[in-house]
């Protein structure tokens, strides 16, 4: 089976400071990969480099496109990359404000990607938006409200709806539950699990929260100071950590 995403030797430095170094892995359809590490580990740099928000210094990010098979996204032209990030890719930001248009209604936010790929029927766009709001458990009567009137959890769910409306195959998530109340986190995690399963999504999730990866990710990469120190099945890495740093990380988690 062709991997959905092949990352090869991805390196990003900031001058002399290492962002991420020589990261390689394959991601298959339907898999969720978690990337954990503490602040400064390079996990956000890695995520942003893969998603095209940062230009890496070396390496390839090969995505299995619908029309042309596996292609190195780094070698794509900017219009192609931007089109990809509006259709087959999605990016859920840690702060919903970075991923939403706060001055546009919820329906407009969800419909934007549809309109960006040519949808021109208002009724159909609105119906899609309402359908998606329902899937992320936002009441249909909020479709014309602006996200500024939403709670943090609702904003995050709206961001997810906005991203998933074009049926992407790969979702990048940067601390998707960060900053949310614990009870809201739980609901969001369950929603994400359900969507990943129902839509056959692959996802790459960056987080510092080990509990989140245990529940959401099939596979796990542990990063420290820009390097991937350990990788494997999530439950295996957390229950039988091989690397010293992973062992330290796991043993440091507070138990409730």
């Amino acid at each position, binding site marked *: 089976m062709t991997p959905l995403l092949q990352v090869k030797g991805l390196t990003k430095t900031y001058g002399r400071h290492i962002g991420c170094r020589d990261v390689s892995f394959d991601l298959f359809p339907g898999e969720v990969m978690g990337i954990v590490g503490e602040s400064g580990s390079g996990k956000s740099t890695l995520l942003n480099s893969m998603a095209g928000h940062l230009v890496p210094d070396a390496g390839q990010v090969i995505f299995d496109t619908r029309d042309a098979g596996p292609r190195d996204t780094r070698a794509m032209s900017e*219009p192609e990359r*931007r089109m990809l990030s509006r259709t087959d890719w999605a990016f859920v930001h840690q702060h919903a404000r970075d991923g939403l248009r706060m*001055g546009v209604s919820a329906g407009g936010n969800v419909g*934007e990607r549809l*309109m*960006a790929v040519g949808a021109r029927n*208002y009724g159909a766009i609105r119906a899609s938006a309402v359908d998606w709001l329902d899937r992320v458990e936002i009441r249909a009567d909020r*479709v014309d409200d602006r996200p500024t009137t939403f709670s943090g959890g609702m904003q995050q769910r709206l961001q997810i709806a906005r991203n998933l409306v074009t049926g992407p195959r790969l979702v990048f998530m940067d601390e998707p539950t960060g900053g949310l109340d614990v009870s809201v986190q739980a609901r969001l995690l369950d929603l994400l699990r359900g969507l990943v399963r129902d839509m056959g999504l692959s996802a790459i999730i960056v987080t510092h929260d080990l509990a989140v990866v245990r529940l959401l990710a099939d596979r796990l990469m542990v990063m420290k100071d820009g390097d991937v120190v350990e990788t494997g099945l999530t439950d295996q890495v957390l229950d039988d950590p091989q690397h010293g740093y992973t062992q330290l990380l796991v043993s440091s988690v507070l138990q409730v």
Partner: protein
Amino acid sequence: MTDYNFAYLDEQTKRMIRRAILKGLAIPGYQVPFASREMPMPYGWGTGGVQVSAAVLCPEDTLKVIDQGADDTTNAVSIRRFFERTAQIAVTTATADATVIQTRHRIPEEPLRDGQILVYQVPIPEPLRFLEPRESETRKMHALEEYGLMHVKLYEDISRHGHIATAYAYPVKVADRYVMDPSPIPKFDNPKMEMAAIQLFGAGREQRIYALPPFTRVVSLDFEDHPFVASKADHPCGLCGAQDSYLDEVIVDDAGGRMFVCSDTDYCAGRQVDGHRGRDNKEDAA
């Protein structure tokens, strides 16, 4: 008082503006940056239009200046006098006699012809500005033809008002490529933009020029199920009886009495000379 260079601007500046105009005509709807000069009127008073007019005027030209369709408002009068003084060109209020027409927020009712130039005064040239404040991002959107956001604006209108409520500065797609702000003309005027004359757009404060060559295809954006309608007030002109011209609503007394009259003063006057009379016209038909 020292003499002015013809039409106020120095020749080097005119050359720079003409280059921008040529580029604009070569790429219809594309906003060309230009080095907007300090003019003897403040920003917001038509400096962009004045600079474009100054760059295209020749001594043989006849200039007409209108403001919301009228030749006799303060702004139209003062800009016309400005060019009379600095260029000594002929001026007129008759649309058909003018070779260069500078306008604020209206297109004349009378169809323009080959050989005429219409110069628009533009406040905000960027149609996406209110949805996407970043210039870096809007430039990319234009470059990559990513106009989904424009439809988001129309979507918002419909969701809020039940119909596309944008009544002026209605966005258009020109030559099937660039989305453009036609300046704050009423949407009623949008269909007129497919015309035989050259159209030039100048934004002085924002420092952009754009242009449409004659017969450029201009399509007003809409949805399949909410098509564009060039609407106007559902009245005839009170003075000349015209059914097909854009109207101004005039309050005539303290009791709320009102009259609808043609916004285009030259068009209305011309119809009255031809003998047309509207319901509110108190003059004799003779």
